[in-house]
Structure formats: structure tokens, C-alpha cells
């Protein structure tokens, strides 16, 4: 039976690989500016069946890049599919996920289905709302903005209970005492390895100010009645409190007299690629049996830095200003999950080391095989939505008299956008992944 266990462990080593080949290709394409290649890869990996994706993370990547390519309807369909998968993740049968969790203890978190971050859920509905707005489908855009709003409300609630849940996880463990001692002793080893998460502060209430602002701007420009303008004011007020961006304040003030809003151009600049997780291997002392300490390596994900495409976008001498820093949002949320990840990693390392010792006692060859399996399966879960931007920026300029808007990217080429002849409030949505690829530029008309 023990041989079976070892064979099983070795067999799942491959499935628990930290970075599969498809992800490596995708990352390389994305960072080299090969958008068509990355899009095709993401669609393929989303594993569509009867028009619905079956892989959540890849559906998010595909939905984002399809938007970037201007294929809004296809993007919405992909993101709709992703939303169904998110719902399944929320309500996944505990018994069924217990089986996966059992496997995850033996291997690593990569064998578990991707569980979305809260900011993933907010961005999913934000992108769908923007897709519908782009297509002039104001009824569905409104529904998606309402969903975005509800996601943000749920975010704060979610994080309140997250910390308690993580501590509870230790109590459920068979080796609870040993895990607790190792966890309490971990901070020194983490600091020595350069893992210091203390300075990662989220926006207050774990809110995404960009989604909040876009929600407000949508209802300012497309509002139908007082209730809509109240909605706009509330969102813009909260967004201003978080960002202190002067244009957000101007828009907030405009909600008092929405009918007198002058035609102008709002430029939303979605800039670069967001922070990604990187693996850090750390030697942590594990308390195995009372007084008997063994050193085992654990693999932890830590957050790297995002990359901006350009420092700003400019129209004449006016430059875009920061609206929301996605890295702050991602790191802030990661910080709340870090203890949980660390606890699970200690549980996993303890369980694996206990098995390794028991096998070694009965047969040194089995012990050796278990040690090899343990080393190979110790891998951090580095999955995350990669095509999100590093930051969102905002710029508002007067409507050009010649209906031509010239966007300048520092170090890149200028892009001229033809605006409608009839002066109106209009949003130009600019997405630049990196200087290696052309920015995508789309116009969002007001109702």
C-alpha cells in the first residue's frame, strides 16, 4: 500500500507542476507583445465545450485579450462563462473539494482548481460592463455595473472573516500542535528570506478605485434619472476619497448638474501588466515530534512588481494621472491570504515529512523515494490573472475643435483618434500592455 502511495505521489508530481508549459508560452507572448499568439493560446487553454469555457483562469485571460482585440461580444461570452465557473467555485460541494484538498496536502495547491481572488471578481464585471458600454448595450451595461457594485460590497465582508478562517484551519489538522508551533516560529525565517508583507497595504475597504470611478462615470454620462446621478455621486465621492484625483472631484461635482455637463473627452488609460507571484523557497524548522526538529524546505509564493507600459499618456501638455494602482489591490489582498498559504504549506510539509520518516523506518529505499517525491512536489501556487494592468490612469481634455485627438505615449508613437462630429461627452479607453505591442484604443459613447 505504501508503494502505491509513493507511485501516486510521483504520478501527480507532473499535474502539480508550478508553471505549466502553456503558461510559460503565454507569459512569453504577453511580455514580448505577441497579442495574437497569447490570445489564441488563452482561448485554447480555456477548454471551451459547447461554447462555454471550463478553465476559469484561462477564461479570464482570454476574455481580457479578446477585449483588447476589439472582439467585445466574444469577450463577454468568455467572461460570462468565467462568471459561471466563479459561482461554482463559491458553492463547490465541501465533500468534493475535501477530496481535492486531501490531494493538495499530498502534492501542492496547484492540483486544486483555481480559486479566484476578490479583485478578479470585481474586474470580471467591470470588463463586461465596459464591453456592453462599448457596444451601446446600455441595459446590460447597467446590470454589470450593478454587479460590480455588489462585488465591491461583498469584498469588505469577505476579508473580515478571512483571518479567522485561516486560524481555524490549524485546529482541524491532525498535527495541529506541531503546525501551530512551526507557524508561530516562522516569522524569523521569513524575514531572513526577504519575505516582508507588512508594508503591503490595500485601499481602504479592499475597494478597487478604478471600478468605483468607472461605475460613477458611467452613470454620470448615461444616467436616466436622479437615482442614477445619486448613484454616480456616491461612487465618485468614494473614489475621490481613495484617489484624491482632481478629475474625480470635478466629475463628482458635475453630478449635481448632470444636464449641464460640457462635452469633453475622458481618457482612461489601462497601463502595463500587473504584479505576479514568484516562488520563494524557504528553509523552515518544523516541529515534528516534541523536541525533535527537522529542517524541511517549503515553497511560498511572494508578489513581484508589475510593469507599466508608459509612465503616462498625454494630450498636448496634459498628462494622465493615477486613478488606481492594481499592484496595491493585488498585494493588499495577497497579504490577507498569506498566513493561510503559509499555514497550508506548513501542514503539507509536516504531513509529507511524517510520511517520509515512517517509510524510512520500514525501508530506506521507500524513504528515499518519498524524499524525492517531497522535493518535487514542493511548489508554490503562482497562478493569477496576468493580463490585468499595473495601474489605471485618468485624463480629461476639452473636446478638440477639429474632432481629432492626438494621444502621445512617451517613447512611443503618437496615435490620432477621430472623434464624432457632434460634440458630446465621450470616453476614450486606452489599453497598453507594454511598449512592444500597439495600444488598443476604443471609444465609449454616451447614451
Amino acid at each position, binding site marked *: 500500500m505504501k508503494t502505491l502511495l509513493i507511485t501516486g505521489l510521483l504520478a501527480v508530481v507532473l499535474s502539480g507542476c508550478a508553471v505549466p508549459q502553456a503558461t510559460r508560452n503565454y507569459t512569453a507572448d504577453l511580455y514580448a507583445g505577441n497579442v495574437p499568439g497569447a490570445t489564441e493560446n488563452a482561448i485554447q487553454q480555456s477548454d471551451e465545450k459547447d461554447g462555454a469555457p471550463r478553465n476559469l483562469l484561462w477564461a479570464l485571460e482570454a476574455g481580457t485579450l479578446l477585449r483588447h482585440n476589439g472582439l467585445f461580444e466574444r469577450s463577454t461570452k468568455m467572461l460570462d462563462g468565467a462568471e459561471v465557473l466563479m459561482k461554482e467555485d*463559491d458553492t463547490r460541494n465541501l*465533500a*468534493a473539494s475535501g*477530496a481535492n484538498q*486531501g490531494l493538495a496536502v499530498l502534492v501542492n495547491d496547484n492540483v486544486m482548481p483555481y480559486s479566484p481572488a476578490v479583485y478578479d471578481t470585481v474586474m470580471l464585471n467591470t470588463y463586461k460592463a465596459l464591453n456592453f458600454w462599448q457596444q451601446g448595450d446600455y441595459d446590460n451595461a447597467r*446590470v454589470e455595473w450593478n454587479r460590480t457594485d*455588489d462585488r465591491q*460590497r461583498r469584498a469588505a465582508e469577505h476579508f473580515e472573516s478571512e483571518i479567522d478562517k485561516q486560524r481555524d484551519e490549524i485546529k482541524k489538522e491532525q498535527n495541529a500542535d506541531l503546525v501551530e508551533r512551526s507557524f508561530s516560529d516562522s516569522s524569523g525565517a521569513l524575514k531572513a528570506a526577504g519575505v516582508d508583507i507588512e508594508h503591503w497595504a490595500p485601499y481602504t475597504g479592499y475597494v478597487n478605485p478604478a471600478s468605483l470611478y468607472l461605475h460613477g462615470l458611467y452613470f454620470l454620462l448615461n444616467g436616466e434619472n436622479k437615482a442614477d446621478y445619486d448613484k454616480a455621486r456616491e461612487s465618485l465621492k468614494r473614489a475621490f476619497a481613495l484617489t484624491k484625483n482632481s478629475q474625480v472631484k470635478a466629475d463628482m461635482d458635475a453630478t449635481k448638474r448632470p444636464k449641464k455637463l460640457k462635452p469633453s473627452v475622458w481618457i482612461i488609460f489601462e497601463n502595463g501588466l500587473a504584479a505576479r507571484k514568484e516562488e520563494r523557497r524557504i528553509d523552515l524548522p518544523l516541529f515534528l515530534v516534541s523536541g525533535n526538529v527537522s529542517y524541511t524546505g517549503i515553497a511560498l509564493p511572494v508578489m513581484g512588481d508589475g510593469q507599466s507600459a508608459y509612465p503616462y499618456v498625454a494630450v498636448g501638455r496634459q498628462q494622465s494621472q493615477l486613478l488606481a494602482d492594481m499592484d496595491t489591490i493585488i498585494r493588499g489582498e495577497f497579504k490577507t491570504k498569506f498566513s493561510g498559504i503559509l499555514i497550508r504549506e506548513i501542514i503539507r510539509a509536516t504531513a509529507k515529512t511524517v*510520511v517520509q520518516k515512517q517509510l524510512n523506518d520500514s525501508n530506506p529505499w521507500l524513504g528515499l523515494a518519498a524524499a524525492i517525491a517531497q522535493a518535487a512536489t514542493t511548489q508554490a501556487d503562482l497562478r493569477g490573472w496576468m493580463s490585468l494592468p499595473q495601474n489605471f490612469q485618468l485624463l480629461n481634455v476639452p473636446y478638440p475643435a477639429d474632432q481629432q485627438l492626438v494621444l502621445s505615449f512617451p517613447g512611443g508613437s503618437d496615435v490620432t483618434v477621430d472623434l464624432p462630429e457632434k460634440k458630446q461627452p465621450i470616453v476614450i479607453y486606452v489599453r497598453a500592455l507594454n511598449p512592444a505591442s500597439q495600444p488598443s484604443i476604443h471609444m465609449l459613447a454616451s447614451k
Partner: protein
Amino acid sequence: MNTKLLLSSLAVTLALTGCATTTHYVDQKNDTVAVMGLDYKDFESAASEMVNQMLASPLMVHPKASQGGRYVMAVSNIVNDTTQRIDTDQLTKKIRISLLNSGRFIVTTAIGINGAEDDMTRKSRQLRNSKMVNQKTVKKDGRVIAPDYSLSGKIIQRVNRVNSRTQQVDYYFQLTMTNLDDGLAYWEGEYPIVKRGDNRTVTW
């Protein structure tokens, strides 16, 4: 201990893959299954309650009702301000049917907020010079009836947390009948639907 864990995990996974729901008809009168979103039962109850309120209003009676006089109603904008992707026609259609059956209202399909619901009223008049069509049968101009009332409204949603496991979702169906002669709202109604359920996931 880990072998046991592995085997029991396997057994649980196998047990869970064996279940499937078979298709069956729903007894709509005694259906007690509830979802957090809006379903046919919600539209049914909202429409019938609001029609009853409307018909009970003395202002909604045509002065020549006893001689068969009826108001003509146009359907204006019904805003879906919820998180559910719903077709507001589901609500208005039920209301229209009930109002028509009451004998007090007739709905125009020739005039609507975004153009006619059925453009054939206008298009059939374009047959005026057609050699193919018997001209005596072509409908005359000046016969389409302008509406007396306009039906507009909104469906809104509020979500609140009851506790960590339960959330409450309130839907409000709000409708207004505007007299197009003077622009005054002659009837207004609100019908709330409240549901409590699982807080693990979103309501849509």
C-alpha cells in the same frame, strides 16, 4: 493514515459523480422552490398584484366605461436596475394581458418609446400606390389612436448581509401610469419581493 485519507477521498469523489437530475414538469401552483434571482413566480405575483392595485384605482376608470369606453395605453421604459439579466417584457407582457382582459385598457403597439413595437401599422400604409394591392383594403391615414396613458417603471434590487451564512435580497417592482394629457401620474404602485438565502455566492 494518509493511505486512508487517499482512499476515502477517492470514494467520496466517486460517490459524487453518480448523481444527475432527471427532467420533469413543475406544478406551478405548488412550486415552492426558490432562487435568489427573479423567476417566473416573481413576475407572475408582481404582475397580478400590480394589476389588481391598478384596477382598484377609481382614477383608472374610463368616463364612458359603461358604454365600452377604454383607455389606450402605451408601454414606455421599464428600467432593469438589478444585477439580473432579465427581459422587462416578461413583466409588462403579463400586465398587458391582464389589463386587456379586464376590458378597461387597450395597448397600442404602433407607438412606443423607441419606435413602434409592431411597425406594420405604418408599413401597411406604404402599400398605398402598390399595383399589386387592392387599394380599397389599404388602411386609411388618420385612424391610428394616440395613447391616453403611458406605463413606465423600474425594477430595483438591494442586497444586505443577514449573517455570515445568509444574505437578504429585496426586489422592488415600481410602476407608474402617466396621464399623457396632463403629464400627471394617475397611478403608482410598488411591489416588494424579499428573499433570504446562501451568502457564499452572489445573487445572480
